[in-house]
Structures are given as C-alpha cells and as structure tokens.
C-alpha cells in the first residue's frame, strides 16, 4: 500500500514542484495589495503633491490582481491534476487488485463494502491530498510571508499582540471541529435508521394496513424523526459555534490593532499607511485559521481509509496470466476426483465430504441435490476458484495445481446459476468483451442456445443494450439462454451448466438440451439441476446431500435403488404437489 501510494505520488513529481512554486508566488502577490493600500493612504495626506505617485500605486494594485489571476490558474490546474490523477490511479490499482484477489478472500468482503473502498475510502484520501497540497501549503506560505511582512514592515510588538487571539482560537477551533465531526457522524447514523424505517414501512404498507398498524408505525417514525432532529440541531450548533469563534477571534485582532496600532501611529512609530496595511494583513489570516481544523479532521479520516485500503491490498492474488490464450493448448476432459473434502474458511460445516468421482472425456455427468448440498462448491473447485489440496483433482491426467490457471479456466467453461449479465450489448455479454469473435460466430452460438429468434426481433439485434437506465430488461429465461450462449461460443473441453435451465419452458428446454448434447459430443459435460428431467439421460448421475455423495449411477439404477433420487423423481411427477393454475 505504502509502495503503491508513493509510486503514484512520484508520478506527479513535476506537478508538485509547479504547484508549490505557483502557490508561493500567489501568496506573495496576495500580500502586496494591503501594502499598496497602506502606501496610498500615506500618500493621500498630501494629495496634490503625490497625485502622480498615487496613480502609479493604483496601477500596481490593479496589476497585482491580474498577476494573482495568472499565478492562480496554474496551481489550481496542477493541484487538480495531482489529486484527481491520484484518485484515478489508485482506483485503477484497486480495481486491478480486486480482479486478481483469490475467491477465498473475496467472499469475506461484502459487495457494498467493496464499493465503499472505491467510493468512500479513495474519496477520503483524495480530499485529504487536495487539502494537504492546496490548503496546507497555502497555510504555511501565508503564515510565513504575512508574519514576516507584519514584523519587518510594520511592528514586531503589534504583531505579537494580535497573534495571541489567533493562536488561542486555532486550538479552540480544532477542538470544536472534533465535536462537529462527532455530532455529524451521529446525525448520519440517525438519518440511516430513519431511512431504513421509511423503506421498510413503505414496502410493508399492505401488511400494516391489514393489521391496522398505521398509528403504531407513525409513533415509531416520530420517535426516530425526533432523534434525527436533535442530532441535526447539535450539528448546527457546533458548526455555528465554530464560525462564531473564528469571527470573534478576528474581531479581537482588529480591535487590538486599533487600540495599540493607533497609539503607535500617534507615537510616530508607524505611519497611518502601515497601520492600515497591518489591518489588511490580519485579513489574510482568516482563511488559514478556518482551514486548519478541516485539515486535521480530514487527516484522521484519510488515515482510517488508508488502513482499510491497506487491508485489501495485502490480500493474496491468483496467479493468472491475462495474455490471450487462444493459441494455448486445451487440456482434455478426463476428470478424476479423489477423496475430496472441503470446507469454507470460518465455516464449521463441511461443504464437501470425501467425494470420489471419475468422468471420462465425452461423458455427461448429472448432479442432483438441494440448496447447500455442495453442488456449486464442487464446480468452484473444478475451476480452482478456491484452493484445492494437491492430489485431489486431476484434469486431463494432470493435477489441478500443475495446470496454469489461465489454461484451466479456458478449458473449463462454467455457466453459473446466477445468469449474470453486464450492462452492455448482448454481443459483449456473450463474447465477454473479447474481440476475437465475429458477429457470425456469436449469432451461431445464440441460435444454438435457442435465443437468437427473440433477439433478432429486437431493433438492434445482438447490439441491443442490456440493463442500465435505457437498456432492455430480459426475462429470467432469456437471461439464462444468453448466458448459455457463452458455452457454445467458447468451445471448451469441459462444459458445466449450473442450474441454468430452471426458468425455461419445457419445449425450449428440450431443444436446448438437444443442442447441448450435439455440442458436447466428445467433450465432458456436467449438468447440475433440481429437476430430474434435466439429468435423466446423463451417462452418470450423482446425488449430493449436505456435502455427501449419497448416490451414484445412471437413471435406471438410481430409480431401482429407491433412495433420495427415486423419491425426488416420484415427488416431481406426483400429482398432489403440483399447482393447479
């Protein structure tokens, strides 16, 4: 993590130099106007004699403000490049890490959690970087330059006296900011609980009405709403207090400068112009003081986010070469599983228990089992999405751990049960964003998946946009067939369908199964399903239950065994269970 951050920041070395140079120029230019105004005031006492000088000072004044514009844009521009560039780079790095993290590590992180790494945590780091680059350096520059000008240009004692309230306030303000942050966090929490309650009660309105719960719901809501109001009020009071503090502080500075400064003028120690310039310098302190508390609290937040991100960056990666593997030789479809036991980390229950299985190239395997029986786990292991111990699985005669991951996953085409589609065109969803396939190949695979006719009717055909705000929404059955098209396109040696036909009607399913049979001739095919009808023609069928392989054989032998398989078979074709409409 540290290495990554440093390497990104190093990329912007030149930009950092530019930013700091221009900020220094900028801050120097900022201190010129008060001095000029002071000079003008002094000159005004002898208006007639100094008219020309005054005009010259006025000219310099306006010129300095143009100079500010010229010096300001480069540093603003470069600072944005640094911070937004940093954001971009670290997002890409995190994405890269996310793509390569091992599945074992990935499953412990919730999707929403990962999203907040991308948005919230990187955002926090960016904000702090911007503040550090833009505000932090300005605070330092202003404090140095202005204090120097006050002391050398006006009066040392006056400077020290006016500094007192500023220093005290800075500490006070940092403390108050802490309260603001805390109360803000609290109010956010209350907002969330209020929102969640609203979400639930708008969703549950029918139940509430059926049980006449309107009044109780309202009472509950008012309670939450009241908490939110109180928390919000606390935020308001604290943040108003913050600005009031700063305002009083600078009011005091001006007051002190007026009392002591006027005496100095009357003493003849300083001129009226210097006195006025001094007031101008005080004004330049307002911004830095109000920036400091924000800088500190942002630093704390960025620190937390940094540590959160660090945890992701240390997670172990898979060793996958992302080179195009089209030229690589695929492994053959013989699968041997020997005494395979697996449990997910932090799970007491065994997901798979002593599984032994042999599938020859060209065979079709049917897998039957209820939810949680270990079907999907077994497939995940065949793709090595989770670590497999040595000597447990061999594919094409080779131990799975000796096969390069890229080749393994190219050889095994796994159609998962969630029928996941990306918000992109249908073509992208089938070719999976690879340019190696032509439109005709994609159309052919869709024809085989019995989906092309429906897609062809759409205006844009295979270029139809899926999902998103203006995309087409496909039905569950259509999605399943689009996903299945991937298998027809990939031409792998081992093809796995994980419960991918459940949303299809009988006739479509029959046609699809026929095409699959055709395609997997000479290849290994694994079909996982809850429905006996999907697997009954397979060469071999296994029944999984709570991680155990309790039955194996073909349709006839399993029916005769009168075990779970035959029970399911009769249940599924029995009459009492079915639905009349």
């Amino acid at each position, binding site marked *: 993590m540290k290495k990554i951050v440093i390497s990104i920041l190093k990329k912007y070395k030149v930009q950092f130099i530019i930013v700091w140079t221009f900020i220094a120029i900028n801050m120097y230019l900022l201190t010129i106007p008060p001095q000029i105004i002071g000079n003008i005031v002094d000159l005004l006492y002898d208006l007639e004699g100094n008219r020309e000088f005054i005009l010259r000072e006025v000219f310099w004044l306006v010129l300095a403000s143009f100079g500010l514009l010229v010096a300001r844009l480069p540093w603003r521009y470069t600072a944005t490049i640094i911070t937004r560039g940093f954001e971009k780079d670290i997002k890409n790095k995190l994405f890269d890490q996310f793509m390569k993290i091992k599945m074992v590590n990935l499953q412990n992180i919730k999707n929403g959690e990962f999203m907040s790494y991308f948005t919230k945590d990187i955002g926090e780091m960016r904000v702090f970087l911007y503040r550090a680059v833009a505000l932090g350096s300005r605070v330092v520059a202003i404090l140095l330059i202005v204090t120097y000008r006050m002391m050398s240009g006006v009066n040392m004692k006056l400077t020290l006296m006016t500094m007192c309230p500023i220093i005290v306030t800075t500490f006070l303000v940092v403390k108050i900011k802490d309260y603001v942050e805390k109360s803000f966090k609290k109010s956010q929490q209350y907002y969330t609980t209020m929102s969640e309650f609203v979400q639930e009660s708008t969703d549950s309105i029918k139940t509430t009405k059926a049980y006449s719960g309107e009044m109780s719901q309202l009472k509950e809501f008012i309670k939450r709403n009241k908490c939110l109001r109180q928390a919000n009020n606390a935020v308001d009071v604290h943040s108003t207090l913050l600005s009031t503090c700063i305002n009083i502080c600078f009011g005091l500075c001006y007051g002190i400068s007026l009392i002591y400064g006027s005496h100095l003028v009357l003493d003849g120690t300083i001129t009226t112009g210097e006195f006025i310039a001094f007031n101008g310098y005080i004004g330049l302190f307002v911004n830095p003081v109000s920036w400091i508390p924000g800088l500190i609290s942002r630093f704390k937040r960025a620190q937390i986010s940094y540590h959160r991100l660090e945890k992701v960056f240390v997670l172990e990666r898979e060793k996958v070469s992302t080179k195009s593997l089209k030229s690589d030789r695929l492994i053959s479809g013989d699968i041997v599983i020997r005494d395979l036991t697996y449990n997910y980390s932090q799970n007491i229950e065994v997901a798979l228990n002593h599984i032994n299985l042999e599938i020859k190239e060209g065979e079709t395997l049917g897998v039957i089992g209820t939810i949680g029986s270990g079907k999907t786990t077994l497939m995940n292991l065949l793709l090595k999405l989770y670590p497999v111990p040595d000597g447990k699985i061999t594919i094409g005669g080779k131990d799975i751990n000796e096969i390069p991951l890229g080749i393994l996953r190219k050889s095994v085409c796994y159609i998962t049960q969630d029928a996941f589609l*990306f918000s992109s065109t249908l073509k992208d969803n089938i070719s999976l964003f690879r340019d190696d396939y032509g439109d005709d190949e994609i159309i052919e695979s869709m024809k085989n998946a019995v989906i092309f006719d429906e897609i062809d009717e759409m205006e844009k055909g295979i270029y139809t946009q899926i999902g998103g705000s203006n995309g087409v929404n496909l039905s569950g059955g259509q999605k399943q067939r689009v996903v299945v098209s991937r298998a027809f396109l990939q031409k792998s040696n081992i093809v796995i369908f994980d419960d991918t036909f459940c949303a299809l009607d009988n006739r479509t399913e029959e046609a699809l199964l026929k095409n699959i049979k055709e395609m997997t001739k000479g290849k290994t095919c694994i079909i996982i399903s809850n429905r006996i009808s999907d697997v009954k023609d397979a060469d071999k069928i296994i029944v999984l239950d709570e991680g155990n392989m309790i039955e194996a054989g073909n349709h006839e032998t399993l029916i005769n065994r009168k075990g779970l398989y035959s029970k399911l078979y009769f249940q599924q074709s029995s009459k009492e269970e079915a639905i009349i409409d």
Partner: protein
Amino acid sequence: MKNKTIARVLELAKPHKKTIIITSILSLMIGIGEIAKPYLLEVAIDEYISKGVFQKGTMTVSMIGVIYITIVLLGNIIDFITTTTVNMMGEEVIYSLRNRLFKFSQNTNATFHDKTSSGKLFVRITNDVEDISTLFKDIVATIMKDIILIFAIAGIMLYFNWKLGLLTFIVVPFIILFSYTLTTILHKQYDVSKAIRTNLNTFLAETIYGAKIIKVFNIQKEKQTECEEYTNGYFKARVKTGIIEGLLPALMTILEKIGIAIIVVTCTNHLFGISLEVGFIYAFITYMTQLFEPITRIIENIETVQEAFVSIDKIYDILDQKDALEDFESGVKLKDVKGKIEFKHVWFSYDDGENWILKDVSFTINPGESIALVGKTGSGKTTITNLINRFYEIQKGEILIDGVNIRDINLRSLRKNIGIILQDPFIFAKSIKDNIKLFENLDDMEVEEAIELASADEFVNSLPNGMEQIANERGNSYSEGQKQLIAFARVFANNPNIFVLDEATANIDTYTESLIQKSIDRLSANKTSIFIAHRLSTIINVDKIIVLDNGSIVEEGNHEALLQTDGYYAKLYNAYYESLG
C-alpha cells in the same frame, strides 16, 4: 417559479412567522454592526490619528477600540443566536413535514399505493424533505442576512457620499455577471462529472457483483481496460471543473481592485467635485469590498433554492391527493363477530368502470365455514380478499359482515377482525416476537402460544436467540415456508374471527408444507376462512368451492358436487391431470 410553489413555501413558513420576524430584526442589527466597524476606523483615523490627538472631548482613541471590540462580541453573539434559531426552525419545518408525509403515506388507500411506488415515497420522505431544510436554513439564515447586509452597506455608502457611492456601484453588475455565468457553467460541469461518476460507480458495482464470472471466463484484462476508460473520463471532467472553480475568486479580486482604483482615482482628482478625508476614503474602500461576499453567496445559493422548490412541488403533489386518505374515525365498531360474509351483486373495477374485475358477484359464507376461491390468474380471486377488508371500495352492490355493510364499519375494527396471510408475507427487521405481536400489546406467553399453535416452535427454537432473534431486512435469511409460519403465528396471536389465506405458489419443502397444513386446519376449524387456493389438498377439504372466471362466479359447490356437474371446475381438474401425463 410558480405562484403555487411560493404559496406552499409560505404555508410551511407560516407557523414560524414570529421566529422569522425576530431573526430578521436581529439580522438587521448584525448588519448595522457590520457597517459600524469601518465607520469607527474612519473616526479613529480622521478625528484622532490624522489630527495627532489621543483624546477628543471625553472620548479617547482607545475607547473607540473598546467600542469596536464590544460591537464584535455583541454582533457575533447575536449572529450565533440568529443562526442557531433559524437552523432549528429549519429542522422543525422538516421534522413536522416528514411526520406529515409519513402519516399521509400510512393513511392513504391501496389505490394510492398502487399508483405511487414505494421507492418514490421513500425518496419524498427522505431526500426531498432534506432539500427543503437547506431552503429554510439558507434562505432565512444566509440569504436574508445577506440582503439586509447589502442594503445596509449600499445605504451607508450613499449616505456618506452619494456620488462616490453610485460611482462605486459600477462594479456590482460585473460581480453579478461574472459570478452568475461562472456558477452556471460550473453547475453544468458538475452535472457532467456527476453523470460520469454515476456510470463509473454503476460499472464498479456491477463488476464487484459479477466477480465470479470474471474469474471463470478470465476477462480481467478486458475489465481493467474498461475501468481505466471510466476513471480517465472522470479525471478529465474533474480537471475542467477545477479550472473553472479557480477562476471565480481570481476574477473577484480583480474587480475589487478596480473598485478601489475607481475610488482612489476619483478622490485624488476631485472628480465630480468629490473630496473626502483619508479615513473616509479608507472606509469607502472597506465598504465596497464588503459588498462582494454577500452578492456572490446569494448567486451561489440560487441553485439550492431552485432545487428545493422542485422538491416542495414533488412533496405537495403527494400531500394534495387528499381523497386518497382512508377514514379511520367514523363507523360502528364490531363486537363479537360471528363471521358471516355476504357479497351482494358486487361490481368492482380498479379504474372506475373501464375494466370490470368483478361482475355481479354474489355469495354467502356462513359463520365457521371455509371456502376456496379457484380460477385462473386474473379471474378476480385476490381482488375478493382485498375487498373484504376494504383495501378497495366497490362501485356497485354491497358487502356485509354479520349483516352490516362494511362501509358502515369502522375501518380499524373491520381489519382487526380479519386475519390475512399474503402470498409473500412481509417480515419486519425486528425480533420474531415483535413480528408476531406486530401492532398489538401481547405478553411473551401469548406470543409463545401463538408460535406453538402455528407449529413454528421448532423453527423459532432453532434460532440462536429464539423468538428474540432479530430478522434480517425483509426476513431475507428465512425461507418462504418459514416466513409463512411467522405469518400464521401472527394470525393466531391476533385471533380474528375471519381468516383469509392467499396460498403461496413458491416451492416449500415437504416438511414445512405439512406444518403449514396443520396450521391451516387449526385456524379454519373455528373461523370463517377464505382460501385463494392453488393446492388440490386445500381445495378438496373446504365446505364450498367458488370458481371464478373473468370476474364472474361460474360454479359453486364442494369438490364432489362440482366434479359431478362436469362443468368448468371438472374441466380444470381433468386438464390438469392430463398435463401430468
């Protein structure tokens, strides 16, 4: 901005008239304090410093400084009070508006909820109300104060020297022009980058969700390229905003210095016969610079105000649908319900007679009887159950319970006497106990009894915390069958005399199914029961089957009788048997 919107804002503000008047007066005092400060400086310079005296009459120059500090302190204390009061008023406004909206959403009828999605209601109650809080806080606290300040400053400038005042005002149109143009451009650019960010985040969320597919198909490289395209687009959009953001303050500085130049040049050359003392010139310069901040702030706030107005209209579009409110007050309260239900020539339509869902439906259910409603989807089965508890009002005919027209029955009392189990029971994110009690005051014993009666004890006891176990959002961690069991316990706990069950079509495992069947038997034993039946086992056991087709009753009788009639039911029954082969 429409008049209607303004009227709505005024309506919201009305209860706070006093607060607004008082804070306006306080704001005026703050404004006076602000303009007094440069004036004090002018006095100090012209009356004391320039003349070289410490004391004039009884006033010393130090006393002026003390007055200055007093004004600062008073002004800030008043400002603190004003701001917090206004903020609290803003919170009060949204607090009561939220309560009002929530109450409205709870008390509106089913037709309203059919038309208004729960997501829409959610946004109205949460986000849109939040927008209004900024309106009240910003308009009253900031904009009003700023307007008063602008007028106070302009007033005193004109009072001191109207010619110079008018001359200085030349810069004002430019302040407005520059800040308005830049703010508009900036907001447009914000929208652009926001849209890109949304796309990026959608992409990220989707990719995180589809992590497994990406690994299975080895498309990390393709996804990385896509990610970098998005982050790069966002980066470029952000850099643009950065430049525009930097431009505005720099332009304002230039304008400010030009303003100073105008004042100084006019005074030194006695243009328009203007001749001022040094202190006055300095005071004028200070006043002029004080004008900038409030003007730019108002312009920056225009956008928020506009957004808030849009939100107000959206909220009132909901609140104005007063005829959607249900009447919970009037009507007789039911006592000792026997449970006789009569439908007399009932006609019903969701769209006021365009499509009749029920056409002249008449039937009677005697106390304690059970009936099954059978028919295709859309035949009007569910509608009938929605009419008994008056989720919808019928257009023609009448529905009687124990001989009383349900229109004359108090709505709460009516619904409390009917226990409904919906197809997909809603589980709240509360404890199982609270989910069963729902809105009733029951003790633990009664809840336990209900759990036992519903045969849910085995399931509830298997939970780590028993009936104290908090359910996930929408009961996500429970199966459909378990949710049904909780819903049955709910009905047992409430113990109504009429029981309505919309049978679930989802797959429920055989064991849970048998538990549910037990509950059904127990409930229907001594209650008037209506089933929207899908399962043959339910249909066969009822006293009477009512067969609906297209909104009309086509047949009535028990299973055997209907089979003998050889009509619609028999056809349905036989067709179903044939489909099983």
